[in-house]
């Protein structure tokens, strides 16, 4: 696409404005609230939990993720940059074969995906990965 300098500068300003004005992005406080609601404010270790997410997602509408925390009672997944950071909470029952699950999630843009596992002894494990998104989800 041919573009002169004036058009180029204009596009850049427009894009910057669009990024700053993206509506409804989650504030860090919302993410902290969601984490505290799950952990009760307890510190989380980083061993014993695996979060698999792509480094680059071409389509933010369907990003495959996988969580695995052997022995966990429950795993919560949060998307720190979505308007509503909550993604899902997996509760594992007595017939579960492994405390692991895969699903597909929406990401509004480049952001951290966070997984926190609650262990039977009351401790928590946390994993986090940044995902770059080419086309944002959430219909923004």
């Amino acid at each position: 696409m041919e573009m002169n300098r004036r058009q180029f500068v204009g596009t850049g300003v427009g894009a910057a404005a669009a990024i700053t004005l993206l509506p409804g992005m989650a504030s860090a406080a919302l993410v902290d609230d969601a984490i505290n609601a799950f952990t009760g404010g307890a510190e989380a270790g980083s061993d014993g939990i695996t979060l698999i997410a792509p480094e680059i997602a071409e389509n933010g509408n369907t990003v495959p993720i996988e969580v695995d925390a052997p022995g966990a009672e429950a795993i919560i997944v949060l998307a720190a940059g979505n308007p509503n950071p909550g993604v899902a909470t997996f509760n594992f029952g007595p017939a579960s074969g492994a405390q692991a699950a895969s699903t597909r999630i929406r990401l509004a843009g480049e952001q951290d995906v966070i997984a926190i596992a609650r262990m039977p002894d009351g401790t928590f494990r946390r994993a986090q990965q940044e995902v770059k998104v080419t086309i944002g989800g959430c219909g923004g």
Partner: protein
Amino acid sequence: MADNVTPRVRVPREASAGDVVSIRTLISHPMESGQRRDGDGNVIPRSIINRFTCDFNGENVIDVTMEPSISTNPYFQFSAVVNETGTFNFTWYDDDGSVYEETADITVA
């Protein structure tokens, strides 16, 4: 109200006692996140499946609370321990009160 909601599950037909089997589920559903706007700029209200459960012979395998960041056509893969022949019951709960159910049998030798 979501139309054409079709649950699909994939479970092995047979297993040995004590095996860990892999289960895949997918349910077609638009999962309206409550963030999108229609052509007139009005917010389209949230309408998602908010919970999914899987039980085997009455014992819980997994119970998932879902929020709007789950993709359209929610997909889950997880595993279960099977010690006996039985039936998996899958249940999805919609915001609109609908409940979708599916079952799958497994023979344990």
